[in-house]
């Protein structure tokens, strides 16, 4: 099922499911600010040499095409490459466990303290900062994937669909998606 890919080195035979879990757990606990992909690259390609750069970039492009968070898709693809289904499961559990536990605790605390004015005011500030952070990170990621001027048009159409026309996200995804795929359709040489 996980035949080695030509051009990429065969993963080191010594990587165990436990090691995969440990490395992704550490990544899940130490990566901040929506830039998990950069942390993944420096760990998997740099520090541990489990993947080469070509394999990493290809996995990233698959991750961005499919639904799912980039970080969890990358974990599944890298884990699968290293140790098959067990590796994929270990990787996604590892990378999500710390953040999920933190947010569980946040949910509990929020239930107890949300009524306090100081908490509301602080979170209002956090929310404003989050808008700036998320928009900046989205633009940084987005800029890289736009090749044609037409792509900017598809971006605008999608935004217009969701906000101007208040269409449901799936309708925009299918409608504008089909149009954009048709635009980029394979042409006969």
């Amino acid at each position, binding site marked *: 099922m996980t035949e080695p890919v030509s051009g990429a080195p065969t993963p080191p035979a010594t990587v165990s499911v436990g090691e995969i879990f440990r490395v992704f757990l550490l990544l899940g606990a130490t990566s901040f600010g929506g830039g998990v992909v950069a942390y993944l690259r420096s760990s998997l390609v740099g520090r541990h040499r489990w993947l080469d750069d070509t394999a990493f970039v290809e996995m990233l492009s*698959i991750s961005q095409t499919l639904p799912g968070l980039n970080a*969890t898709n990358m974990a599944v693809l890298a884990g699968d490459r290293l140790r098959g289904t067990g590796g994929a499961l270990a990787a996604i559990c590892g990378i999500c466990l710390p953040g999920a536990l933190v947010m569980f605790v946040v949910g509990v605390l929020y*239930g107890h303290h949300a009524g306090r004015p100081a908490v509301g005011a602080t979170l209002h500030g956090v929310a404003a900062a989050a808008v700036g952070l998320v928009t900046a990170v989205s633009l940084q990621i987005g800029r890289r994937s736009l090749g044609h001027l037409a792509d900017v048009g598809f971006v605008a159409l999608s935004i217009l669909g969701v906000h101007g026309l208040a269409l449901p996200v799936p309708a925009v995804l299918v409608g504008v998606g089909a149009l*954009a795929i*048709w635009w980029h359709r394979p042409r006969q040489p």
Partner: protein
Amino acid sequence: MTRIPTLMMVFAYLSLLTFGGGMAAFPELETLTVDVYHWLTRPELIHLYSVGQTAPGPNMLMVTAIGERVGGPLGALAVVVAFLGPTALITLVIGRLWRRLEGWPWRDAVQRGLAPVSVGLILGGCISLARGALTGWVAVAIAIAVFALVLRTRINPTLLVMGGALIGLIAFVG
């Protein structure tokens, strides 16, 4: 406990919309959790989402907090499994097929076509978040400052969010 199956269905559905990143599903997340099922209020959703930006790991793990608010520990677990499971399975299967699709001329078209749509959906999510979070000029100023600092400097984003928290505490109390 009767809410658990509904929670799972909603978050499994939302996970299928996260093209390019979790933010693409935000407008639909807002509609379903706030307007349709009334699991939380709009400010609560925006608070939890924003705190989620400071948590380690993938930035949409804030869904865990929604699960906790709605159904306790079991709700949290149900939401995480429902939100991550379906796309993990899809990625596992398509990841293995990917090489075999190499000769298929539409593979590239699908990839290049979906890229701008996912960027648009993510920016659409940002607009939804901004509409809820930017309620006055202080909030707008914080957002613009963080936006510029993220693009222009290498300051750790978590520090910027903490800065926003501090300004919020001073400016919005009372």
